[in-house]
């Protein structure tokens, strides 16, 4: 009875992402790691008809979410041509559910491969810690950019990944811990 899907192949559902909603109270109470109340979800847009359908549905979904739970959002395109949905909400569960719902509509439209990652920014000991969930692998890993914006604080990353190993499905292959520099969290 596996609680989270941690298979070697590509994950088919993203139930694993829900783990961060469960983990968040413990992250703040026992590890002094606090959410910034935002999340970024990024995907590669393409020109297909399916995709414009999907984007329409997604915008409706986000607008409905804004009405119901007060989850503010903004959509921006970055220098890599990736699109970002940046969302902000004081209720962390609402953020996770919104990300999950967007992921579901990608799944339903058969556009799962376009999804790259969801990034949950936290603060820890004055540092910016981003928990990155990648859709290809269905796992989380930490990304702690150094103040110079060019290096990573590997020390903190490894330490944190060991601390929260029981709370989150952590990516075991460190070579897959790719950075995501300059997520446009200020967009919302």
């Amino acid at each position, binding site marked *: 009875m596996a609680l989270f899907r941690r298979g070697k192949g590509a994950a088919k559902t993203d139930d694993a992402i829900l783990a961060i909603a469960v983990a968040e109270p413990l992250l703040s109470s026992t590890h002094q790691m606090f959410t910034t109340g935002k999340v970024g979800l990024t995907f590669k847009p393409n020109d297909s008809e399916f995709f414009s359908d999907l984007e329409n549905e997604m915008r409706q979904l986000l607008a409905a979410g804004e009405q119901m739970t007060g989850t503010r959002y903004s959509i921006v395109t*970055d220098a*890599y041509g990736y699109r970002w949905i940046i969302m902000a909400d004081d209720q962390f569960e609402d953020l996770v559910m919104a990300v999950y719902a967007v992921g579901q509509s990608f799944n339903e439209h058969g556009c799962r491969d376009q999804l*790259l990652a969801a990034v949950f920014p936290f603060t820890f000991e004055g540092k910016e810690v981003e928990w990155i969930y990648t859709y290809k692998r269905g796992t989380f890993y930490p990304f702690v950019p150094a103040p110079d914006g060019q290096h990573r604080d590997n020390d*903190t990353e490894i330490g944190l990944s060991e601390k929260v190993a029981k709370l989150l499905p952590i990516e075991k*292959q460190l070579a897959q*811990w*790719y950075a*995501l520099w300059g997520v446009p969290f200020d967009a919302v």
Partner: protein
Amino acid sequence: MSTNPRWTYGKDTSLQLRMYFVMFMLAALYLFFVTAMMALGVPIFLVAGIAGVMMVIQWFGSEKMVLRSMHAKVVTEQEQPKLHAIVDKLVGIADMPKPKVALAITDVPNAFASGRNQKNALVCVTDGLVRRLDDDELEGVIAHELSHIKNGDVRVMMLASFFATVAAMLMNMLMWMTLFGGMGRHRGGQGGGAAAALMMAYFLSMLVYFVATLLILALSRYREFAADRGAATLTGAPAKLASALGKISGMIAQIPTDDLRKVETANAFFIVSALKGESMAGLFASHPPMKKRIARLREIEIQMERGR
């Protein structure tokens, strides 16, 4: 094992030849550098004097600086009985004075040695290392650091980099001098010959600095191999150091700094990640690649088994 004289494995003639060759090249380069600077009328001895004072300060203050920069502190036998037991055992076999033992509180698995001579030496490990390695592996890593102390590597590397430091200082000075010299010429309308000499000296220092850095890095890599070999002889268990290296390289070295979006885009265009220019990285690395070190340790292990 004790019937075998330790030093039978301690020599790697080809490694030593390469080490001497690099040191010879460095000496030749530095001699050329000093002569050329004198010919160009640069006050090279003044600069070398300043660098010398800096080196002496570093020489005597190195321990405190190193400890502070690594957030490490010297630990007593009561605080870290296991570390002290390992060091005691190894210095006994190596027949060397016991260095100070320090522990750095960080998750990064690492270890280093420091000190200008055997009497003032220090060996430091991080608690990330202690937590991840078993006792035999830890012994292998500490034996590697003790070998650095025994081989006088801190001293060798400091001396080797002395003139590279001089060249770097000169580069900075000359840059300013050519700037001001240029201004002077503008006003006075003379001194073109002196300015050309300064320019020449500037490019020469840059070249010497570059070549010296490559040679120093090569020397550093050779000394790492030598310390691995030293550790293998001290512990009699090269496989343990090899497995420790495997564990360490499994952590930090693997975490990329590349952006996920860049990698995804690259994958889409079928660019093989093997095109990362590893041979270049090797040329500029102070430590040899883990794979090579582990392979050499396996060779030593086979040699040892034959000798048994």
